[in-house]
């Protein structure tokens, strides 16, 4: 799970153009990953076990870990990669190493859930890289998970342009999920109290950089359009229907 800006407005850039100006931003859990946490919590409620939430990022990401705990996750792990954004190969290496360390203590996680892509960097690969490094099956874009622990298998459903696909994967497995998998719960008061007191394992990581290096961020050129006002309230209906006729829609 990744700490990401929650801004709904146009992003502002820092003076050197290397990053988004975060001074006035709120942060949040990526929507895909909020669904991953929800799914993990409800799978464990049905099947038993526990949920560990891991984030690789700056120390401040403990805010998002607390949110995950307030949703019902049992344990939080912060892999502190420092204040600067690191590339996807390095991110995957940090997560892989931390996962190996956790699994060395407690055995393999039956299922590792990732968000399909982060809403800010949008690299579409961190989860796949981790799954490959750990030699786990991995399906992305998943919007439905059924676990059969006895058979040691997962059924993973996703939407593709032509319809729906279902994959069967042996456990332990990994998935990258998308929003639409479920409706994430709002944290309860009890969950929030628990989250406030929760303690996290903190691991330091300084992975080797990979081959993709960010130089700068830019705002794309905006298509300027002068909005044509068709009118106010119900009185605008004839003008709207004129437009629909003009565009040959009705």
């Amino acid at each position, binding site marked *: 799970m990744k700490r990401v800006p929650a801004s*709904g*407005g146009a*992003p502002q850039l820092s003076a050197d153009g290397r990053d988004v100006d975060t001074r006035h931003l709120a942060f949040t859990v990526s929507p*895909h990953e909020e669904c991953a946490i929800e799914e993990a919590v409800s799978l464990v409620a049905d099947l038993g076990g526990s949920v560990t939430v891991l984030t690789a990022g700056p120390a401040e990401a403990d805010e998002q870990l607390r949110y995950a705990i307030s949703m019902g996750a049992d344990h939080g792990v912060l892999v502190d990669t420092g204040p600067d954004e690191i590339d996807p*190969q390095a991110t995957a290496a940090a997560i892989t190493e931390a996962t190996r360390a956790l699994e060395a203590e407690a055995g393999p996680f039956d299922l590792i859930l990732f968000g399909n*892509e982060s*809403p*800010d*960097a*949008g690299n*579409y*690969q961190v989860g*796949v*890289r981790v799954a*490959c490094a750990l*030699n786990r*099956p*991995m399906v*992305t*874009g998943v*919007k439905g998970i059924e676990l059969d622990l006895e058979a040691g298998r997962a059924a*993973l459903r996703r*939407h*593709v342009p*032509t*319809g*729906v*696909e*279902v*994959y*069967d*994967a042996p456990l332990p497995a990994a998935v990258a999920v998308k*929003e*639409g998998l479920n409706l994430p719960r709002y944290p309860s008061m009890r969950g929030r109290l628990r989250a406030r007191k929760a303690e996290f394992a903190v691991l330091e990581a300084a992975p080797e950089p*990979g*081959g*993709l*290096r*960010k*130089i*700068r961020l*830019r*705002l*794309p050129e905006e298509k300027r*359009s002068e*909005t*044509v*006002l*068709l*009118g*106010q*309230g*119900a009185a*605008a*209906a004839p003008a*709207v229907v004129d*437009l629909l006729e003009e*565009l040959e*829609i*009705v």
Partner: protein
Amino acid sequence: MVLALVEIGEAGVQASSLEALTLARDVAGSLGVPVEAVVVTSDDGTDDDAGTRGDMSTVDAELRAYGVQRYHRMTHPLLVDYSPECWGEAVAQLIRQLAPPAVIAPGSDRGNEIMAQAAARADLPLAANCTTVDAGADGSGWQLTRLRSGGMLLEDAQITAPTRLVTVATGAVEPAPGPAPAAADSVTFTPDFGESFVHSRLTERAQRSAGVTLAGARVVVSGGRGVGSADGFAPLEELAKLTGGAVGCSRVATNNGWRPHTDQVGQTGTKVNPDLYIACGISGATQHWVGCMGAKAILAINTDPEAPLVTRATYAVIGDVGEVLPAVVDEIRRRAATA
């Protein structure tokens, strides 16, 4: 040679793959090397003897029209049904064999998935959803531009590796045929999978039912918080029916349980590109905007004349969606009756 990953659907080479082929040809041109393709077939085509699918004679002609001199058809029993791991491993093995300076793939869900798998297995960097690639004169530190935040931001980046993996953001490159070679060579590539190869298996595939889909609709009537409730979507449904369109919504509408997530337009929903997008009671947060900015025209209906979607729209009506839409529906019916 620069390698393009090409997806084939029922109608031949898919549009997003033509974009990848076009960019691959540009990059190859600046390096003075030929373009080759690796053919990834969809599961909808007809089987042929080599285990590859799709009508290969049209594919052959299309690839040639885009300047491809040679293409690699991947064949193996484990590739007959789509498997992300096997397809990715096959591409990684082909990369090892050919050692191309770049592999360029469509930024479709499948393109991104296969390339992520290939990148992980070949331990190479991958730049997803690029709009431009500049192979540079020295051939080492290539510069590229990629989309971030669903397209609200651009990232200029440098990619350094013996083979650079790139996916092309959908719609970022205008597909353009190039000088065609007399004939395209086709060679088969059979990857080698070990006994213990871990993979998921496709077990079930359901075709989408016919009807207007959000992604393909000519008109999308979309509602947000301003619609007020699930019932408030009734006039949107009616307008969609009258215009042969589809109903969409903002994340607030899905989060409130007013609409299913399949209707959501935006960064974490569907990206639409209709002729007309009618946004009813939607403010136009960036994460929503990136899903509808591909529309040819946008009509915003909103009580707030300063809402970002109103100021960016082509057309606007200032008013309560609960009053405006029923009046529009009545007006369409009235004109139809008197026509």
